[in-house]
């Protein structure tokens, strides 16, 4: 909900869930993709477990139960989804910014983020929100 922010085409998302735990993460990425599809610039503040979404050392693996090796399984990784959205924004001439909460990164040991994802803090969330048309905070449960 927003009644006073200047009209622009930038949306901020605050997200808290980690990869591989629940469907909110999938929905969050669908929302980011939809925002870009509608020509909105996107800014993400990743808080708590969400800082692992951009962890650069995520690795694919094979799955014996599926009967597939690593290449065939082609396991989804959130770092690749971020990279795909970065490419989509670039192709469309939009911006896609991502800041991880630094303290959340430290306590989880996920310091190595993919290129284009930076480190910051709550002041960045406030800056993002203040400069955006609207903000969606997606809490965890």
């Amino acid at each position, binding site marked *: *909900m*927003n*009644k*006073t*922010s200047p009209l622009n085409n930038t949306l901020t998302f*605050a997200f*808290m869930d980690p990869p591989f735990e629940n469907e909110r993460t999938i929905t969050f990425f669908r929302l980011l993709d939809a925002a870009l599809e509608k020509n909105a610039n996107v800014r993400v503040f990743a*808080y*708590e477990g969400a800082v692992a979404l951009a962890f650069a050392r995520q690795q694919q693996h094979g799955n014996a139960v599926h009967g597939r090796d690593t290449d065939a399984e082609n396991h989804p990784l959130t770092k690749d989804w971020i990279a795909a959205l970065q490419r989509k924004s670039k192709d469309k001439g939009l911006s896609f910014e991502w800041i991880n909460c630094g303290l959340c990164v430290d306590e989880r040991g996920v310091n190595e983020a993919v290129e284009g994802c930076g480190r910051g*803090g*709550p*002041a960045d*969330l*406030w*800056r993002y*929100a*203040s400069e955006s048309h*609207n*903000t969606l*905070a997606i*809490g*965890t*449960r």
Partner: protein
Amino acid sequence: MKVLQVIDQAFRTAGEEQDDTILWLTQCMRGAGAELEVLLTGHGAYYTVQSRAQPALKFGAWQQTQPADITQDIGRLREKGVPVYVEREALQERGLFGLPVLPGVEVISRDAVAKLYENADQIWHW
């Protein structure tokens, strides 16, 4: 821009984070100049009637030394000029209505929540 922070969960990760992470986020953003209000509803209403720090965790020989003190955190928000509200019905539903609430916390009816939402520019419901 004024943002209303709505907190309806309680004690989620309070053990390992040593605070309520949304109250912490609110304190940080207030320090960065944000105009914020806090509405405690649902299980979050309990924060307004407790007066002790959380019990320290202990696993084997490991002992927590700085358990969450949410009462202190709410007091700090009030000291920084952040209005803190609690929904009366949330207290009633949990048998907590009538207990003393923390100083500076305003008890409001569920009907008044709509007005609170109307007066904010953005609602961040965590």
